[in-house]
């Protein structure tokens, strides 16, 4: 850390991220460019899967050096061997991360985290739900929006419900039973967040299992939405930062990961990305703390899932879900 930073004159580091975060990532990278005298190009390939597919297809000629990606997708990439392990000697900031944010096998760590919880429209709902189980109490029939099994949070919800109903992380049968029994009460099984937002605004739904980061938009629209931390605990979707295997700038990529986990960058994550930073030293404004996870306690309460188990079973779950729950109309 004392050494003067190496000069990467002429190098162009390609960082792939979500389209809607591109501008902010570009902004966050400015100092990195200055420090290492290189150029950072942000590749905005909309969704996680597009990014992952691209990287998998480009195994022989990777175009991307660093990829930001939701944990569960990154797990697929790790398994497929398209990502490099993180070099702890370079990425020294790893040590500042909450434990859950570090990858057990040494792959890309989480740089931010969002929570799923229950959001409801207080204008429409008199008695708010307190737990996931409450959702099926009958009070919210026809007003519910839940993640589709094919969405990121779908399997999380399944596992959570299964655990509550007598199953476990590896026995999801009770969860499916619950979903199946209540299939007609769910108004919307959503795949993207904008579907939920629109449904809230048109009054189609009033209760949803949704991400915390969506609160500001809903609020700004004049909807009186409220956040509930369900009794079962929140489950999270964390964003990871990964180095692409055989990429053109491996050294610079590792440096970028380290940079992204630094206090300086992490301090800006909440404001710029509207997500909770995973660096223990990171600060967060009070306004953000209202709905973003902050502090050791909140971080500890986040539910963990076995991504590899989920990934191995996801296709089958989706198929079953489509046959038994979201049955073709």
């Amino acid at each position, binding site marked *: 850390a004392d050494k003067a930073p190496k000069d990467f004159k002429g190098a162009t580091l390609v960082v792939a991220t979500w389209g809607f975060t591109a501008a902010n990532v570009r902004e966050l990278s400015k100092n990195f460019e200055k420090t290492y005298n290189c150029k950072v190009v942000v590749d905005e390939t909309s969704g996680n899967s597009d990014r992952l597919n691209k990287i998998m297809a480009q195994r022989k000629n990777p175009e991307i050096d660093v990829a930001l990606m939701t944990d569960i997708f990154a797990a697929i990439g790790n398994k497929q061997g398209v990502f490099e392990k993180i070099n702890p000697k370079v990425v020294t900031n790893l040590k500042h991360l909450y434990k859950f944010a570090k990858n057990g096998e040494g792959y890309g760590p989480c740089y931010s985290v969002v929570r799923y919880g229950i959001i409801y429209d207080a204008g429409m709902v008199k008695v708010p739900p307190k737990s996931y189980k409450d959702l099926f109490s009958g009070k919210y029939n026809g007003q519910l929006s839940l993640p589709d099994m094919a969405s990121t949070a779908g399997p999380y919800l399944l596992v959570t419900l299964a655990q509550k109903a007598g199953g476990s992380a590896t026995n999801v049968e009770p969860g499916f039973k619950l979903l199946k029994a209540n299939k007609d009460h769910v108004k919307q099984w959503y795949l993207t967040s904008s579907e939920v937002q629109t449904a809230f605004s048109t009054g189609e739904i009033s209760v949803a299992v949704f991400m915390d980061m969506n609160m500001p938009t809903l609020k700004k629209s004049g909807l009186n939405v409220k956040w509930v931390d369900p009794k079962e605990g929140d489950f999270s979707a964390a964003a990871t930062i990964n180095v692409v295997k055989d990429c053109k700038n491996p050294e610079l990529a590792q440096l970028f990961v380290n940079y992204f986990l630094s206090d300086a960058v992490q301090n800006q994550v909440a404001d710029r990305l509207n997500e909770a930073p995973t660096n223990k030293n990171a600060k967060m404004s009070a306004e953000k703390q209202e709905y973003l996870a902050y502090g050791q306690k909140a971080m500890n309460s986040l539910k963990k899932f076995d991504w590899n188990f989920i990934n191995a079973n996801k296709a089958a779950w989706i198929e079953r879900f489509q046959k038994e729950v979201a*049955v073709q*109309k």
Partner: protein
Amino acid sequence: MMTLTKQNKQLLLLALPTVLALTAFFVVPMAYILVDTLKADGTKYFQKFFTDAMYRGILKTTVLVSLQVTAISLLLGYPTAYFMARTRSRMKNILLIVIIFPFLVSAVVRSYGWMVILGGRGLLNQLLMATGLIQQPLTILNTSTAVIIGLVHLLIPYMILSITGVIQNIDPNVERAAYSLNANPLQTFFRVTLPLSAPGIISGCILVFTMSMTSYVTPKLLGGSKFRMMSTMVFQEVNINFNWGFASAISYILLFTILIILLFATYATAGANQRVGGGKRV
């Protein structure tokens, strides 16, 4: 049918660049990946598809919805095209632009417009309830009805534009001749105008049907998660399950379904297309 004459062969040379381009950039890649898929997975995924009632059901839904979309687009599009071709209204150009307006709005945004209109408390329901036509809001969104409405909206311009040009080329004297022979406007339409516009109809139907078969955004957004078409499944396998083999298999099943249906349609309409044309004066 004739065998190829020399002129004919020379004419066919004209198509050479097109043939080469399509072969190089479409056929070869597609075939390459098909072979790859077959090599890697054999017919496993094809078998999976056809032995599972859900997938067969999705194929059936896709075909049925596409047929409905095509039929509605034709029934609504033909009179509109007729109007466009025959009116001397000063608005003609404006109307033409209106037809292509929807294309300027991304399919997603357009679907949003429909959500606002068709939603449970959407404009349509508000209107119907205000006028007392219904007591309970209709459920339209997230049903096949919404998908059909959205697809017709998306694809009807193809129908209208395909037919308008052909109707414009019909010699007005030919319709007059039918009138003089006592055919009323309906008979004239069905026996003269309609058969003479067959090329446009066929072309429009092929465009609408195939685009509907391969559509993705509209069914996804207006059909919700309980409505799936073939493209939905392809997307799911590519983007969620990362199962490229199954995605390819579904794509090729869709491709061959379309080809078979078109082959059948071509055979059924062969006469209509061929008879038209030639021998007329300016």
